């Protein structure tokens, strides 16, 4: 939607190789083409991130998704050089991150990108309030001001009344709220999430996901979200990069990933997804104006198929898909069932 904006993060040909003489691997075409196991046998090196490129647009939630060991956590750490990349370029707002000196990099970490960690990474000897204010303290913000700002953020994430507790006195969900508040307190341009909810119970996890959705709706902050949970990725992501063995195998909207998997691996991955919860009417419709001037019970093109089924089932008639008063197409039982069954015709190139 915000295509005209310049990307916040722009990653090009990024490599991260661990092991002896890691530098030589990305430069050698004979090595880059090897499978991971073969590469390790040949050089003793492990390539965690292999030739990854993507842009993160302003205001979107960009999800990097993959199983454990796919390199997604390494990738997000490379963005602020918590892990030093081996090759490739990273730019934030057009500025080369890899060329930054120490103080410039510190400035980036302090103000522009803040991270939320899987196991929270809280300081056990500080209260909730001081943990939240920690980022500001590091920046040298005065005590009373940073406490006041931290107080605001604590309220925003729903932790009022717990300011004086220690992390050990909180539940897992509450701890991650502290982690989230700490990242928000420095008012960063981008929020980076490294599997933030995978250590939480399913119910708490859902709460926290909704919290993130709410925050994103209210503030419109750019987010990079790492997860191994497909449903989480589909729920939160505007766009998803699916990683395997350090490579991005498909990058697209949730609908593109579910609707037109790039290869068998992705297809296997999304097999059990309830497609009606991801696919939209716009994809499911039979294109073409219905011809009429009135469109009773019309649907918007970005509405979910699951909602369209309700409408169509209730009225018993096909429904029109209308955008800005213009009729784009029609969905009927056959079309909608096709989506649920996964037999609908492949979406033509957009």
């Amino acid at each position: 939607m915000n295509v005209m904006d310049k990307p916040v993060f722009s990653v090009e040909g990024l490599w991260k190789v661990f092991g002896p003489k890691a530098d030589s691997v990305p430069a050698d075409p004979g090595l880059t083409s090897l499978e991971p196991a073969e590469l390790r046998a040949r050089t003793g090196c492990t390539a965690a991130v292999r030739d990854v490129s993507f842009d993160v647009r302003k205001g979107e939630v960009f999800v990097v998704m993959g199983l454990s060991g796919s390199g997604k956590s390494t990738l997000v750490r490379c963005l602020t050089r918590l892990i030093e990349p081996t090759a490739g370029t990273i730019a934030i707002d057009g500025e080369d991150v890899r060329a930054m000196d120490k103080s410039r990099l510190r400035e980036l970490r302090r103000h522009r990108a803040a991270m939320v960690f899987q196991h929270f990474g809280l300081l056990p000897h500080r209260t909730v309030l001081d943990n939240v204010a920690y980022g500001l303290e590091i920046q040298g913000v005065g005590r009373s001001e940073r406490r006041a700002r931290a107080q605001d953020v604590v309220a925003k994430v729903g932790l009022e009344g717990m300011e004086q507790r220690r992390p050990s006195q909180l539940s897992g969900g509450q701890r991650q709220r502290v982690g989230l508040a700490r990242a928000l307190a420095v008012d960063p341009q981008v929020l980076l999430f490294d599997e933030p909810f995978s250590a939480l119970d399913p119910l708490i996890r859902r709460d926290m996901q909704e919290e993130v959705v709410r925050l994103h709706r209210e503030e419109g902050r750019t987010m990079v979200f790492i997860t191994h949970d497909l449903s989480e990725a589909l729920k939160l992501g505007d766009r998803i990069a699916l990683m395997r063995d350090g490579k991005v195998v498909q990058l697209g909207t949730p609908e593109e990933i579910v609707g037109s998997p790039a290869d068998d691996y992705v297809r296997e991955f999304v097999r059990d997804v309830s497609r009606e919860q991801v696919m939209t009417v716009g994809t499911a419709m039979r294109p073409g104006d219905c011809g009429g001037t009135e469109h009773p019970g019309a649907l918007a093109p970005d509405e979910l198929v699951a909602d369209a089924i309700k409408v169509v089932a209730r009225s018993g008639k096909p429904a029109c898909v209308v955008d800005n008063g213009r009729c784009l197409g029609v969905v009927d039982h056959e079309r909608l069932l096709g989506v649920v069954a996964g037999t609908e015709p492949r979406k033509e190139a957009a």
Partner: protein
Amino acid sequence: MATVTASAPRALPGGLLKHRAAQKLLLLALVAAILVPLANARWASGSWPAALTVDLTKPLTSASNWIIDNRDSNPLFLYFFGYISNAVVISVHAVYLVLLAAGWAGVTALGALVAWRVAGVRLALGTAAAFLACGLLGMWVATMQTLALMVVAVLVSVVVGVVLGLAAGLSDRLDRGLRPVLDTMQVLPAYAYLLPVVLVFGMGVPAAVLATVVYAAPPMARLTALGLRGADKEVLEAVDSLGATAPQRLLTARIPLARKELLLGLNQTIMMALSMAVIASVIGAGGLGDRVYQALASVDVGAALAAGIPIVLLAVVLDRVTGAAGEQAGEESRSLRPWLYAAAAAVAVALAGRLAGRLDWPDSWTFDIAEPVNRAVDWMTAHLYSGVPVVGGTADWAGHFTTWVLNPVRSGLQGLPWWSVLLVVAALAWLIGTWRTALTAVLAMAAIGVLGVWQPSLDTLSQVLAAVAVTLVLGFATGIAAARSDRFERLLRPVLDVFQTMPQFVYLIPVVALFGVGRAPAAAAAVVYALPAVVRITAQGLRQVDPAALESARSLGATPAQQLRQVQLPLARPALLLAVNQGVVLVLAVVVIGGLVGGGALGYDSVFGLAQGDLATGLVAGAAIVCLGLMLDRVTQPTERRAKKGA
């Protein structure tokens, strides 16, 4: 080949392990078959061949003489050691004067208030009672002397330890360099540190303080490094991700995260400093240790006990208070106000004491226990020493132990050809550890021979072996019982706690009362000193055995004896080996001190050296003690311990 075997012996199946063990022995036998006839042909002698010794007495004597002659003129002493020495004397004296100026009421109040703030009301009362008991026993001044020395020594140890620990915690290279040094210092007997310090500083307070620092700083350094290295990686990453500078990261994250280890380090440093401050009375530390030392020299058990009880009280109080500080790390509020109140109250009490003219402990309030204790000891000597029907007497026991155990072991060891001793050392060390530990052990043992103290060292070794055997039998039995019965363990725990905090020196008092002087009492003191650690490690090891393994054994219908023999003991093997290692190290520490009560051998040589100003004899004996300590540690050092520490 050898390193491969040694690095993962536990992962190998039993048959293969035996096979590997046999391989090691075979290889060793091969080496022996070549070297022994050669050695035997050249230096045929039962004891260490004279041709292979180096007499260090002359150079050491001349070195020590040179130092004594030049102490007042050489710039190194004048401008370096002299300053250190003066600074130490001045600060100890200053602390001592402050303690005296605060008066007994002020010191007691201060101690109690600190204990109250750190550890609660019960310990505060205990602390006050302990200080008052010191006064009641007529030991107030001696206690303050020891305390003053300790305050200075602990402060210096903490500073040195934290600096070394920070270096080792932050730099991998320094850590690799420092770790083996600290590991080795940990296993050397306290006694070994005394002589080199005396050589440079002469007898007196500076030497005592510095020996204490050398002994007490390593645990602080180790634990500081451990705490810094053990910090949660993700927390540090989070701190980095927020853009912290290196100093910010250290001050706001790494050090606070290591707080628990730092306080544990402080606790250990204080305990070791107390232990050493007492032993250092031998080189002129004064205070409580000196009273014990003097009393023991004249076998005056009552006087020794009167000085020994304050030491024990001091140890227990210091341990509990600092231990409590470590346990509640991070829990208490940061507020300073209660501390201010406490300080004000202490000052008020001190002033009140001053105004009331009761600065010194009133003489009329002391209670002389030496008399009645000595009467009791006399009665014991008369009635329990020997001739008690059926059980015999304590002196009889000591005599039998000497005749039937110590003497045969000693003559056995001294009768062995020297090369066979080396072979046994090599075989044991290699079977339990790696070829590296075996090599170190053999070299250490050979160094003893080269130093020309082969015979007395074997005498000391025989005492160590006998005491270790007794310790292990008693310790394993008690440990197994404690692991099997919760009630027994609950009863045992406070006893072990107290025993583990007491300085080594104190153990000599009761054994002298019971067994008189000689080698048997020295061994007995060593057994009592080493027993708590062995019991504790054994019980812990057995209790930490995987419950699932035990449960599956039970579900198959194993009897308790079968469970113990087939599941618990094999799985607790690393803990048992560690218990042996600790037992050996601790026993040696006390057997050496046993030289003060007639243990003879190396311990006696070093005391004699100190007492007669014959530093050469003392230093050679001290070096032999170091070698013996190294050898015993390496021989019993399980591979796992190395691996764990390296991780």
